[in-house]
């Protein structure tokens, strides 16, 4: 861990990140208005099962002959929503605990122990355990599992980034002034971590998309009649020969979302790639 505070990100990096995030933002807006734009209802068959694109269905039909385009337009909102909730909750918790951990070495050690322990349980196995533990929990169970399993790692990143600040002059002087630990953590240290926290949010969003879609694929969250990108891939995979678009369209949507946010995050953290640094630390 270096003792020098990280450089604040440059304006050009910020612009680059905004350009890279644009596809994901557009996709997000499209899913918000999706249900209004969709030409057909998401649940009613309009064509033959696995019908090829043409006629009333520009992307063809799915396993029950429902319009693929309409289902893609309907199926993004809940997935993006889950990923956003996961990212927000993990970033918030990690920031709060991480700033405190930089000031209290005991808490820092406890976090290291927890991550040591959590690494042995593959995230997906953990989500399976917790999601099925809560019958009928659906998406809420997946989100809860992702938050519980993701927070220790994220906390370590924040604690690592906050550590150099714990020994700086302005924190020492605040300690000498008799400020309490909450003031030190949130008024003195936290404002310096803006770029770390933004990049962390991006990383956690990508992770959220990963977990929510993997869970959707395993039918842990959304259940069949619902339109969901990951579930669509699962449902329509057997008919991939007849109408590949029923699988390709939702796959592309998930890829664009995750890749665009990840590239934007990487651009933002270019001077100080967060994740790799923590491994080296």
């Amino acid at each position, binding site marked *: 861990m270096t003792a020098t505070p990280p450089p604040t990100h440059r304006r050009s990096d910020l612009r680059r990140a905004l350009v890279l995030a644009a596809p994901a933002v557009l996709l997000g807006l499209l899913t918000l208005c999706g249900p209004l734009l969709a030409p057909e209802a998401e649940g009613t068959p309009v064509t033959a099962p696995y019908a090829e694109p043409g006629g009333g269905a520009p992307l063809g039909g799915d396993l029950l002959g429902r319009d693929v385009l309409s289902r893609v337009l309907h199926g993004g909102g809940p997935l993006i929503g889950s990923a956003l909730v996961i990212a927000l909750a993990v970033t918030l918790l990690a920031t709060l605990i991480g700033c405190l951990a930089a000031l209290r070495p005991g808490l820092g050690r406890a976090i290291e122990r927890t991550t040591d322990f959590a690494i042995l*349980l593959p*995230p997906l196995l953990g989500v399976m355990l917790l999601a099925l533990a809560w019958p009928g929990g659906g998406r809420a169970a997946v989100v809860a599992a992702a938050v519980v399993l993701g927070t220790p790692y994220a906390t370590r990143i924040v604690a690592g980034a906050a550590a150099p600040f714990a020994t700086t002059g302005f924190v020492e002087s605040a300690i000498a002034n008799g400020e309490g630990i909450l003031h030190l953590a949130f008024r003195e240290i936290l404002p310096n971590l803006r770029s770390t926290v933004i990049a962390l949010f991006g990383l956690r969003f990508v992770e959220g998309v990963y977990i929510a879609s*993997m869970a959707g694929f395993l039918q842990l969250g959304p259940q069949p009649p619902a339109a969901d990108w990951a579930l669509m891939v699962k449902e329509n995979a057997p008919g991939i020969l007849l109408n590949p678009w029923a699988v390709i369209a939702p796959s592309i949507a998930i890829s664009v979302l995750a890749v665009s946010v*990840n590239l934007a995050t990487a651009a933002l953290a270019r001077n100080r790639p*967060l994740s790799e640094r923590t*491994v080296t630390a």
Partner: protein
Amino acid sequence: MSETAADTASAPLPSGPRLSTLTRPLRPLALLLRRAAILLLLLVAVFLAVDLLPGDAATATGERGESVEERRRLLGLDQPVWQRLWEWLSGLPHGDLGTSARGEPVTDLLATPFPNTLLLSGLALALTVAVALVLGCRAALRRGGPFDRVVSLTSTMAIALPEFVISVGLLLTLSLWTGWLPATTMTGADGSITSWSMLVMPVLALAIPQIGWNTRIVRAALADQAALPHVAAAHLDGLAPTRVLLRHTLPGALPTIATGLATSTGMLLGGAVVVESLFNYPGVGTVLSGAIANRDTPVIVGAAACTGAAVTLVILLADLTRARAVGGRS
């Protein structure tokens, strides 16, 4: 996905100072004990977590005409949880993972699928090691060059993709449009895979995101090492860049790289569950999804135990690499 997972084992062994007072031959043993203790803790936590959750195997697998109470007694679920936990743990040393809710020994249930999953993830891990090292080293030779930029961009993209999305891409390009590879896995009567070509796509689907992640780690670790004085000295001595990279930079970066790979192991075993179901691969994923629907604690915990043990083994290797690299200075 994996970025966060990879931070973990990187913990500069918290017990370092204590370990350094031990004599050298004892250090691997101490590392082994530490990792074994963490694994044991995890198993207890998983067993308790599954147990505390609402619903149990008796309600999920009960047959007609049999009351839930009878079924519960039959399965031994009326015993206190501590007693069941102790019985299960004491069976572990002789390879006894308990009995499933349907009455089959868990060891038998996992005996065929788990080696299949290990084969799949093992091949993916080997591919990850090879490709990530080559790409990372080449990128590090000319930092900021065109090759480096292409590798950085593609690896950042690869990390973000869920395995099933990559599987779909592979299926379309390698199987449906070109007809080069079979789309699903055929198995022989004994549950083994009939042809090697069936492994290609599942292995690639698992390896691609991990290659992206590990390439970035290799590159970052080499960059950190390259800033050290002994590497600068080697350059000033006029040694060839490749020689400096392989003999002076890479050795110091190995602990970090090993740690990244260890954390990838967990991701590979987790991703295998999804990839297996998409390619009909006869692995532990199939057993696991059935067991979760049945709330079959012994099977789930058994699978978690096997997975945890495999990850522990790789993390232990990473620990040993680190201990070796740091030498007596831990």
